[in-house]
């Protein structure tokens, strides 16, 4: 589907978990790292396992490997694992003209195994530690339940990522196409939040919900972060300073988010002074909690594209903040990194 040029989800800014078009796929790697820990060996191993007995000849083994299209197999005797034999052992036997030798003479008797319940990271570690191509997998009772090769790990990870990606995509697609699916000359989504006063523990709940809503709508992480920060500062201002609480109305449009925070008092005596760094009328207990240092409005100005504050003592305040969603010119929309020493 073709998207309008100005959209909440500019091409490339749609994300499957955090990267912008210019940034390398850092979160993609993180996702795989997570999966390597989350996935269990039993979820990726090959099962059932083709096995041979110690009495099998190398010639018979050749046929088994060829017809089953495998490169090695555990050797089982009376239900117990006694060795492992691979295509390498077969090649050596062929070269030495010992095609009639028994598997028991050519196999590796000391077998390193993995447990079905262990996470895939264990297998990754073992593969990098030992130069072997496959590990038999045992259950908690020591019974052979599967076999794992590096191909199994790769396939398992790709499948898991594919599933996650597919589910996420469907959800994101539904939410993020709301502006295209609903036809009008000008579509806005209005979210309204009531902000309590002096209820410190609940401070920030609205901003957290706003963030989540924007993520669902497919906003890119940098933009969602900016909106979250300005909303949080505005929310904390209402929570700290007002006598009756207030409300925040968030208007989401394809190309911008506008937040209007209003309250019914007590109002700001000197708006210009309130904008000065470090100027604050917050009580001591608020300062002890890490707020009220007179930096909130400055932060809003820093992260917003536009901000407008008006206030009347005894009436209340109205703070209007606009964040453009595709303002590539805004330095805060760049992918953020850390200073290097």
């Amino acid at each position: 589907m073709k998207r309008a040029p100005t959209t909440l989800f500019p091409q490339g800014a749609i994300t499957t978990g955090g990267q912008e078009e210019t940034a390398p796929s850092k979160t993609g790697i993180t996702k795989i790292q997570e999966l390597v820990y989350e996935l269990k060996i039993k979820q990726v191993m090959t099962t059932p396992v083709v096995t041979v007995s110690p009495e099998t000849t190398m010639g018979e083994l050749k046929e088994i490997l060829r017809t089953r299209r495998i490169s090695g197999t555990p050797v089982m005797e009376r239900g117990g694992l006694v060795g492992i034999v691979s295509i390498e052992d077969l090649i050596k036997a062929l070269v030495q003209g010992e095609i009639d030798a028994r598997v028991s003479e050519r196999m590796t008797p000391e077998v390193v195994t993995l447990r079905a319940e262990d996470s895939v990271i264990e297998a990754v570690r073992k593969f990098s530690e030992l130069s072997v191509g496959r590990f038999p997998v045992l259950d908690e009772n020591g019974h052979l339940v599967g076999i794992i090769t590096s191909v199994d790990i790769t396939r398992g990870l790709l499948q898991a990522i594919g599933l996650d990606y597919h589910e996420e995509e469907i959800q994101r697609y539904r939410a993020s196409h709301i502006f295209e699916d609903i036809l009008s000359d000008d579509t806005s989504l209005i979210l309204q939040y009531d902000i309590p006063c002096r209820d410190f523990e609940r401070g920030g709940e609205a901003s957290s919900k706003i963030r989540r809503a924007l993520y669902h709508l497919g906003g890119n992480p940098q933009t969602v972060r900016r909106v979250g920060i300005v909303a949080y500062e505005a929310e904390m201002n209402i929570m700290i300073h007002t006598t009756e609480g207030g409300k925040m109305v968030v208007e989401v449009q394809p190309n911008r988010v506008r937040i209007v925070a209003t309250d019914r008092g007590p109002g700001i005596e000197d708006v210009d002074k309130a904008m000065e760094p470090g100027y604050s009328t917050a009580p001591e207990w608020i300062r002890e909690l890490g707020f009220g240092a007179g930096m909130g409005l400055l932060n809003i100005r820093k992260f917003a594209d536009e901000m407008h504050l008006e206030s009347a003592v005894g009436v209340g305040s109205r703070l209007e903040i606009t964040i453009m969603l595709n303002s590539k010119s805004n330095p805060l929309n760049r992918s953020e990194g850390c200073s290097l020493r």
Partner: protein
Amino acid sequence: MKLREIIHILEGKVVSDHANLDVEIPCAAGADLMSDVLAFGRPGAVLLTGLTNPQVVRTAEIADMAAIVFVRGKVPPPETIALAKEKGIPLITVPYTLFEMCGRLYERGMASCDL
């Protein structure tokens, strides 16, 4: 530097469960002023602070930070731990001062979060 390594360097203790300690931390910030955390915190960074109220977790969430370290042996109250659990942000307590903790990480090459 991985979170696991940071905890080791700081001799810290994880106070919230099910934390992924193998997450890579790009930089660190030490602050007790939440507006500073919002202004200078970086996504994925670790926050070192002397405050333990739930708003510290909220602030870290809003600033997309990955973990919080409480200095001088402070143990966060249950409501802070509950919110951290909900948001999936690991909490760590360390016995030493903010100054020393920042120093140890800086000495080991941890980058500072700033613009």
